[in-house]
Each structure stands twice: as C-alpha cells, then as structure tokens.
C-alpha cells in the first residue's frame, strides 16, 4: 500500500505496469502528432515514408510548410492578439476581484462570489451562444432605435475576446485571491508605519508579492485563450483564430502541416508551462520563509 509496508513482488510489479500503461496512454497521442509532422507523405497517417521538413518550410503546392502558409500565419496572429487582450484584461479584473473579495466587506459579497465562480460551471458552448445572443440583441436594438450599426458587436474578434474573458477571469480571480490570502497584512501595516501612503504600500509591497501569481495566472490565461475552442466557435466571425482554422482543416482532411502547427503549439505551451512552474517555485521559496 505504501512503501513502508510489506508487499508481494507480483502485486508491486503489476501496479508499476499499470502506471506505465497509463503514461503510455497519456503520451501516445501527443507523440504521434509530433512524429508525423516529419512524415514525408501527403497525409498524417501510415505508412511512414521517411523524414522531411517540408511541413515546416515547404513552399510549393501541395507541400506548403506552416511558415509559408498565409492563412495559418494569419490565424496565429489573430489568436495571439486575442490571447494578449484576454490575458491583460482578465489579470487586471482578477486582481481587482482578489482585493475586493479578500479585503473588503459589502452587502451581497457571498452572492457575488458565487456568481464569480459560475463561469466554471457553464459549458463553453452555452457561454458562447448566450453572449452571441446578447450582443446580437444589443446590436439589433441600437440599430432599430438609432440607426447605428455597431459592427464590433457582431461575431468577430471583439466578442471572441469578451467570451473568453468571461470565463478566464474566474481563474485569475481564484489564483490571485489564493495568493493574496497568504499575504501577511502586517507587511502592509509595516509599510504604513514606515511612512508609506496606502497606495504606496500596495504598490511597493502587496503587488510585488502578488507578482508570481499574476504572472502564473497570466500564462494560464494566455494558453487557455490561445487553445480555446468551444466558446470561440460560437462567436467567431470571418477572422478565424488558429483553433478554428485547424478544426476546419481537420474536418476536410489535411496535410501533415497540421501536425507541424500542433508540434509548434506543444513546444510553446511546454515552454510557457515551464516558465509558470518556475514562477510558482519562486513563490514557494518565499512562502516557506
């Protein structure tokens, strides 16, 4: 059961074998996606025809590598733009919420807190359609009463950003609140006592303390936004971000260029994940103190 208790060799081995199988199950789809990015074939499937880098750098039809595929590059650009906007917005609002919930008392606090958690329980598709309907209602209402066409409220980048922001903010709120809860308020009092104003104390002491959580939350936001599919699918206009473009190609049956994009995505995600772990570890060192 635990290493300190005697255990038969057979059952220990059986257990280890199960764990190994589990991790093969976890790794298999990711490994094949990566490996087939280099397959010298028009389809991401067997047989294996040897190694090629065409799916990254190829220039001729049908072997267009991702670095020369205008549509893919453009959609990466859209995804990046959306992710940056969503990250900045949700980290800002999440930080405000953390201070609000951890430091202030007001009537209806508990109700608002439950509402702030709600986006986690709402399926992404439904969040998408409700925002689609709502923005559409407003746009129609404005058009009918004022004759103005508010184009940004029609499916497109703006409402995609809003849709992703709507649920990602719950995550930033939770992460940053958790960190703020660990903050020893006597540090802020010490700053006041040493002559700092209220705002100076927050700026010089509390915000630097929250920084690891804000960066960590920001990275998670960025990735969640970049990889979001369900909500985005409902709100997307003509400028489709990467996941939507990939989905369309996947349904049509695509070349291994799709694997190449996926591999790049995995690498970037991995690097960002490592950064966030590193930031988190830094935070732990401070906590232990």
């Amino acid at each position, binding site marked *: 059961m635990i290493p300190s208790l005697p255990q038969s060799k057979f059952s220990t081995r059986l257990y280890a074998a199960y764990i190994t199988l589990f991790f093969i199950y976890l790794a298999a789809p990711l490994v094949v996606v990566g490996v087939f990015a280099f397959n010298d074939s028009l389809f991401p499937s067997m047989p294996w025809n040897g190694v090629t880098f065409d799916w990254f750098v190829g220039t001729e039809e049908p072997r267009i590598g991702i670095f020369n595929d205008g549509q893919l590059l453009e959609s990466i650009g859209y995804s990046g733009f959306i992710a940056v906007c969503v990250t900045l917005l949700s980290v800002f609002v999440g930080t405000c919420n953390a201070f609000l919930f951890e430091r202030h008392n007001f009537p209806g606090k508990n109700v608002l807190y439950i509402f702030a958690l709600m986006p986690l329980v709402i399926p992404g598709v439904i969040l998408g*359609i409700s925002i689609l309907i709502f923005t559409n209602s407003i746009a129609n209402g404005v058009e009918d009463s004022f004759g103005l066409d508010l184009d940004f409220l029609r499916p497109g980048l703006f409402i995609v950003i809003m849709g992703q922001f709507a649920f990602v903010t719950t995550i930033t709120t939770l992460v940053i609140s958790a960190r703020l809860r660990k903050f020893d308020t006597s540090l802020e009092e010490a700053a006041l006592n040493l002559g700092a104003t209220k705002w100076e104390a927050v700026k010089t002491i509390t915000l630097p303390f929250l920084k690891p959580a804000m960066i960590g939350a920001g990275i998670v936001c960025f990735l969640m936004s970049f990889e979001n599919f369900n909500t985005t699918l409902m709100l997307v206009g003509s400028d489709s971000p990467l996941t939507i473009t990939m989905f369309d190609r996947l349904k049509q049956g695509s070349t291994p260029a799709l694997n190449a994009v996926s591999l790049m995505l995995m690498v970037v995600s991995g690097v960002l994940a490592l950064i966030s772990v590193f930031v988190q570890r830094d935070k732990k060192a401070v906590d232990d103190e």
Partner: protein
Amino acid sequence: MSTLQMTSGTEKSDTIPMIKLGTFLLMLPLLLWLFLLIILPHLDLLTVSLREKLGYREYAFSLQNYIEFFTEPLYWNTFVRTAVMSIVATAITLVVGFPVSYYIAKVIKGKKRNLLFMMCLIPFWVSELVRTFGWMILLRESGVISSFLQWAGLVDGPVELLYSDATLMVGLVYTSMLFMVVPLVSVLDTLDDSLIEAGYDLGGSTYSILREIVIPHAMPGIASGCIVVFMLTLGNYLTPTLLGGKDSLWFTEQIYNQFITRFNWESGSAFGFLLLFLSSVIVFVGLKLSRQTLADTVK
C-alpha cells in the same frame, strides 16, 4: 493575538450599511463582468428560448421550443444519451485515475513523484484539438494502431477504430483525466501514512484499508473530481464531433446545429438552457450528496 482577531472581526460589523467609494470602484470591473457577460446574456438566452418567431424580428411568447424538444425523440434521445455517456465517462475516469493518483501521492516519493505529477499535467497544457488530432492519427483506418495490428498479423486488412462509442470514451476520458487526478492527488497527499500503517498494524487487509480508510478520506477529492469531469464532458464539443460516430450526436452538436446550420436561435437557446439546467442539477445534487460547496470544489 486574540485581540487582533477580535479587532478585525468587529470592524466588519462597523461598515455594514454603506459601501465605501473605494470599495465601489474596485467592485465596478466585477459588476461589469458579471452583468454584461454572465448574468444578462443568460437571461437573454432564457428569453429567446421562450419565444416563437412570427416574422422578421417579430416574436411572441411561447413554450413551443421546449415542447418541440420533448416531443421530438431525436432531441430527447440525444439529451439522455449525452447525460448517460457523460456519467459513464466520469466513472471510467475515476476508476482509471484513482490508482494513478494513489501511486503519485502515496507510493512514490521525491523527484520522481513531481516528475510523474508534471507528466499528468502535460495534456492539459496542450490544446484539446491537438490531443484529439493525436487520437485520430492513432485510431483511423490508415492509422498507427491499425498498421501495427496488420504488421503483427492480428488482422487481415485495415481496421477502422474511429467513430464508435468506445473511441469516444477513450477520447473523453483522456481529455478529463487531469481534472480527476489533481484533486485526488491533493486529497490523498493529506492522508497521513501512519493511518495506513495503523490500519495494517491492527490487522487490516489491503482491501479493507482501502475501503475503510483511504476512500472515506479521499471522498471530497473524488466528489470534486467527478463533478468537474462530468461538467466538462457534458459540455464537450470537440471530442464527440471528431471521434464520435456520425449517427450518434452529442447534445452540444445539436445546439451548434440549431444555431449555426439551421439558424434557429430560439430552439438552440432552449436546448442550451436545458443543458445548463441538467448540468446545474447534477452538480447541485453531487455537491449535496458529498456535502461540499462550489467554493470547496474549485480550491
């Protein structure tokens, strides 16, 4: 110390009736977020689901969309099927994930433990689209597993492993695994080894220790893991669309079809609302049964 706590406790009651300006300014982003992006859109969703289209931008209140749902077996069946499949997927995720979580939390120690735990998290960092794409490459007729089986001489020709309920399960369990393993590992981490040793010392068998000590202790983690996995599975769109059979629709696909393909927002909204309702009810029942709160679950 006690004076200090008492101080903050009583200061709270001093500020009951009025909201200070600073508090209000800080609350503004929260209120905008919740009202404009969560509360009002869902109220609008409810309104739209309760109306009937008479002509161009001309509507009347009606329960038609809900009646249609209950009278049309296709919709009804999809709904039930989605719920049942989600429950099955949740159960499988629990059964597969529990031994792994236990292994990480209790059996293995130190650096190896952290490494294994990190490896469990990796799929979460990779887009769901990429993961699903990986399964397609593995399972399709011209895929890796089919080729392997042929090479090993186990089958004569290519086999199509995609587009079945079993494939769908594999994909759903894969996608949800993280959300089961993380709460389980953290709850099992808090189980003191000496409790297991004591159980053994008092003559307990592996099975009885598991049933009477480990699982009761892990209950909060099991509950929150199951709730989250169920919610995610129910609301999943990508995996059923790409891996599932052509004739077996997932309910989210039904909603998508109503909205985007048939442009019937009224009935799409009704479906959306029903899904939200189902999800909330099951989450609520789950929380009540396990005596947890939503706030505990997301911790």
